[in-house]
């Protein structure tokens, strides 16, 4: 067991775990942040997507000892009681069915929007290629990302 100090959603938190424990299980079992989901354990389905330094990563294959920057999870995507534009777009388009994959979808899409505020369908397909939706909500996911991009840009214009 080793002690690690992680920055998660803006808070510095200390955990005492084995070095090879994937970040996913540190978040879920040790820090009780269960919004990040377990789907496959081999970085195929994207349910476990979080941001490290703003980059989307699969937390199920990232050992805690290799976490190199501040971690953002779905719970911390928007500060305080605010919603991220993607979260409001997800609600507006009634995207979820079972909902299990959606945190990962939103985290991948958020990383896209932070680099590309006017993504094409192809851009969205590429950025979300690592995220399965077994219920098949892809049609609405695409629409919601476009809507969120328009929120995002309006927000930027309004300073």
């Amino acid at each position: 067991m080793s002690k690690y100090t992680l920055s998660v959603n803006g808070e510095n938190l200390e955990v005492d775990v084995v070095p090879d424990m994937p970040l996913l299980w540190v978040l879920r079992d040790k820090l009780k942040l269960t919004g990040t989901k377990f789907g496959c354990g081999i970085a195929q389905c994207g349910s476990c997507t979080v941001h490290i330094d703003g980059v989307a990563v699969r937390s199920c294959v990232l050992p805690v000892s290799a976490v190199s920057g501040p971690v953002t999870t779905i719970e911390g995507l928007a500060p305080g009681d605010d919603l991220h534009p993607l979260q409001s777009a997800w609600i507006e388009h009634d995207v979820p069915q079972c909902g299990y994959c959606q945190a990962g979808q939103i985290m991948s899409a958020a990383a896209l929007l932070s680099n590309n505020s006017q993504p094409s369908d192809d851009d969205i397909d590429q950025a979300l290629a690592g995220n399965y939706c077994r219920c098949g909500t892809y049609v609405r996911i695409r629409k919601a990302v476009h809507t969120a991009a328009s929120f995002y840009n309006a927000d930027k214009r309004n300073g």
Partner: protein
Amino acid sequence: MNSKKISRRNLFKVSAIAGGGLMLKLSLPANALEDGATTLVKSSELNFYVQIASDGQITIYAPNPEMGQGIKTTLPMIIAEEMGANWDDVEVVLAPIDPAKFGLQGSGGSMSVTRNFDAMRRMGASAREMLIGAASQLMEVERRDLKAESSQVIHGSGRSMTFGQLASVAAQQPVPVPEQLSFKDPRSYSIIGTSVGSVDNLVIATGLSKFGIDVDVPGMKFASYTRCPRPGGKAISFNRAEIKALPGVVDAFILQPDVRSGKASMAFLEGLAELQGGVAIVGDDTWSVFAAKAKLKVNWDESAASTDQWSKMVTDARAIAAKGGGEVKLVGASVPEALSDSNNRTIEGFYEFPYVAHVCMEPMNCTVDFRKGTAGKPASMEIWLGSQFPNQVKEIAENMLGVKQENVKVHGLRMGGGFGRRAVHDFAAEAMAISHKSGLPVKLTWTRTDDIHNDYFRVGGFENMKGAVNPDGKLAAWDQHYIGFADSGKPVIGSGLRGNELPMVAFDNASVRQSMMPVATACGAWRAPGSNTNAFVEQSFIHELANLAERDHVEFLTELMGSRRWIDEGNISALNTGRAIDVIKLAAEKAGWGRKMPEGTGLGLAFYFCHAAHVAEVAEVSVDADKNYRVKRVTVAVDVGPIINMSGAINQVQGSIVDGLSTMALQEITMQNGRIEQDNFHQYPVMRIASTPEIDVHFIQSDNKPTGLGEPALPPLAPAVTNAIFAATGERIRSMPLSNAGFKLV
């Protein structure tokens, strides 16, 4: 971050603001997830489903388990409509598991709307009459001059009282006699038929939604379970000392198979499941028990293990098809004659469909707290799980561990997918046995490999088809030989023909036979059991016959329906040829059927009737020289009667199309000496977003009773796509998944 108040009111605010494109603010404190409405104001219960607080907030209990089919939103909408409630005043809470109050709390067979529509209307109408009774009393006016709408009771004079003001007096009113209740004229509906967002969207989008896998119980430990790679094997011994010494491991032990938990009948779903032998590891966190599981060395007794071999099943089925015979289900008047008549044109085709897995995004899991009995206090158990039929796990607890059902408390949580998998509770039996043996509250989580290997699979199968068309281009004979699988002599769920399929009820000269081969691999219900494979075979072969006759597919298919009639008047499980013809024509029209298609592209049509639903689909597909194919658009026409939630209904259809495409394109489970050969998504992929077609959905809102939509839009998709590939290339595909024939979905 935990202070987000979860309520419809917030959702309304969110939606209202979202239109303005601003960052959004949530206002209210407190949290109300699944534990019931937390409100400080006085609340009055009008019936089991409806509570109204003095501040006007209406709480409606959603009785049925939610797995993504939207039922948690749909059923309360029906109640709110009949009450005259304003939907924005409604907070929906998942009902506790209590069949005495809420009936069969199950989700399966696309039956929730069908079974509950009238009951929900009665609950709403009953609450409305009590509110009107209260208003009549308080306003001292005649009941007949009062009406309920927008969460108020309004008098003809214009005076009104809000539901909140009326709630406590309404709760004292006599409960109306169900037979005397009247229902709203559908033309005056203000909620039913509109698009309502799923009530859990906010908690899902913010990561606060609680699935079974997210359960946290005080003192809880974590568990993994490892079964024999060959189903039916049991553990003799394992490297226990080594495993127990690993970091984070608390205990490790063998569980023997236990038939007392209840043998799962693969012929009929009853929720029970035999406990399979294996090795349990209990530890401090999920990772520790997963990591230890990977280091297990188990000595298995495989004397009774499965020897299933998919390659042998294929060979055997071909031999059976060549030999003919089988159990006769239907005999046409002159099938052999028509097939051998030299004036007719004939065609024969052998179709194959594989076993497939459910792969719910949330792997199976269950949390159990078993408490030993003490003097004067019986043993008890508390269970948390996502299940399509949560109440049924009580029976396993009683059968296997002797805990009386009245001492078992079950918490049903939102499911990260069901598709039929969470109708069988083998994983719950394991969690119960682990908690019982370890004496600890434990959460058992399956790895993805456990989830695939231990599935109750969609059964594979084969059909040998022969048909003839006469010189007039009409169907002369249909000969169908289904070769499927049986357990203890009974066809497993989804194998064989039910008897209400199109050829069996509507064709003039059809013979249908069925042969069954034994199977040890567990089979279960998989979204539209039976239909999801029969549709592929029948609707492809009808297209083959239409081409043989050089007829237009739409014309040929509608002609086969014959006159417009309900095959068994009043029976929702019976085909209505008029409704069938209408959806076929609508889908064709909306897809631009008959237009000239560019080289390498084609339109394909399919129709299927199941789950009381008539659905037709037209796929538009392009195929390149390297067999890369893209499904550009799917046009869907559906008649399930009136739609309750338009947004939810379209979502179900879109999801069914994607699911159907993912399965037909990519997915196959194979067995090698009993062992399932696919371990994870790298060998069992799910379709990714880039392959998603445009999906154009049209409803015929007939005045039939509303019926369910979780399943019936899936079956026609596969034949629509393969028929379109034929139209584009001239190549007939008779085997799924298409990847085996070198076709690559792009």
